[in-house]
């Protein structure tokens, strides 16, 4: 009995899961194809706040990137040293830097 309930539940959830995976894939493709995110940016900063970090790239790439300065994470301090990296790669790396498994920074 329990097994059939589980199966029914799985069948009910499966389309949602597939739909979610497709949405994530679509967003990833969209971001990969966005030329604005392929613009090169550079940084040589020590202990700069995340908010300032984003402002710098926003100015360099003319892409609006911001975080509310009252948001606690806005003060997270970043050290960055790189030249001419695609903005999209930097943003992906930044997300990874500030995330833990199952606690990803979105």
């Amino acid at each position, binding site marked *: 009995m329990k097994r059939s309930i589980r199966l029914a539940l799985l069948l009910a959830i499966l389309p949602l899961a597939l739909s979610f995976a497709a949405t994530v894939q679509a967003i990833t493709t969209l971001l990969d194809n966005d030329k604005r995110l392929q613009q090169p940016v550079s940084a040589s900063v020590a202990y700069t706040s995340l908010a300032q970090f984003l402002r710098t790239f926003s100015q360099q790439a003319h892409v609006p990137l911001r975080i509310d300065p009252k948001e*606690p994470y806005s*003060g997270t301090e970043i050290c960055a040293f790189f030249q001419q990296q695609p903005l999209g*790669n930097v943003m992906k790396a*930044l997300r990874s830097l500030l995330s833990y498994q199952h*606690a*990803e920074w979105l």
Partner: protein
Amino acid sequence: MDADFLARLHESAILAAMTPEERLRHLKEVMYVCGIDDPLFCQEQHIDPKKDAEYFAKETHFFWCWFHLIDSGLPPDTKQLLLSGQPVTLSFNQLPSDVQQAIIWDWQTMPDGSDQPAWVTIQIANDHPGWDTTWNVEKAIWIRIHNSTASPAVLHATGQSAWRWYKRWLLPEDAPSDPQELQPLPNGFPYQPQVTPLPPNPDPKTLAKLKPVTNCTLLDRMQEIAAKLHIPLLATLPYDPEQIYGQLTLNPPKTLADYLQGFSTYPEKWLYHKWNSGLLLVSYPRWPLDQAASLPEYLLQLLRKNLQQQGLFTLSLLRQLFAQMTPFQQHAFAQRFIPQADPQGHFPVFLFMLAHPELESASGMPLTPALTLEVENLHLPAYSAWHKEVFVALKVSVFDRDIWGRLMREFRLVGETTDQRWVPLEGILTGAVPSSFWQTEEIPQK
């Protein structure tokens, strides 16, 4: 006493301020971040996740109640004795009930632990107090539990091992390493500072230029990787890395992988790294709630602006800010802003703190550099704020002296500690202490 230990003491104070529900929630978060609920981790270690989680919860409780006892459950004299590394023996019946329960729990797991414990001896040390061998463990509270018949049981309460953090940090899309790490390093990398002895009688005016550079900061090291090896690098680093990572006692590394591995020789300050989108990412183990302790940018800007304009934070500003901060943010504030030097090389030190005997005894006396370092690294502001205790404003003056051909840096405390009163800070910086300095202000309620 060191900064790490005090930080943990501070964390225990945070726990002490929590309600039981908050503490349980925090405990679950710690377990989550440490990977206790991770099936893969449990499988690798051949452990039962439920039993391990239960054990971990009890161990954490054990850790907490001992820190809490030392923090606020002992007379000042006893506390001073403990913080100076001396053993203290306490009767079991005098201990708080939570400590008693924790002892009984551990005692019952001992082979000879059938009888009721009679007394306990506690000591703060890096290694097992009775043994000559070095365990290389972090600073811990060592606890010897005695009764009338069995030999004493020895336990120690420390933090968690660091490596589990890395596992949580590695996202599915990350690469743990990169072929660039295996390339041979160019000559001259990493930079090895050369220590040049000072001349016998150096000119005071040029003394500063002659000071030997004996170490590089962690930030320098990261910058060097990016500049010399042309590797794009993104990092979150501990704020005061020079004190922590000062001297890298590494064998000459052959590859970047060797070099990065060398940073893992600091057990509590392990640097870990991974790769994502062609960038080298570097971070360090932090307390699970470290992210929650981040100070918002507007607050950082306000603090920096105040520091630049006045050199010190006014008491009213601090009160205003602390009222807005969570305890975790107060902790972050302490870590970030306590060591700040003004252009004259003076170090204003702000301490909201309990009446700590080690500082009272230092008031007005020359301090050794080691002690001053400890003073600068104290992590106590939030801690004291809860206890509604004394606000202490200290200023440390620095003097460089040539003693027997060696440059010695001497520190002196300028200003006064006060007892059971809040004082304004403005007069301390200029040296002109206003009369209001001595006027008692109402201690703000939490």
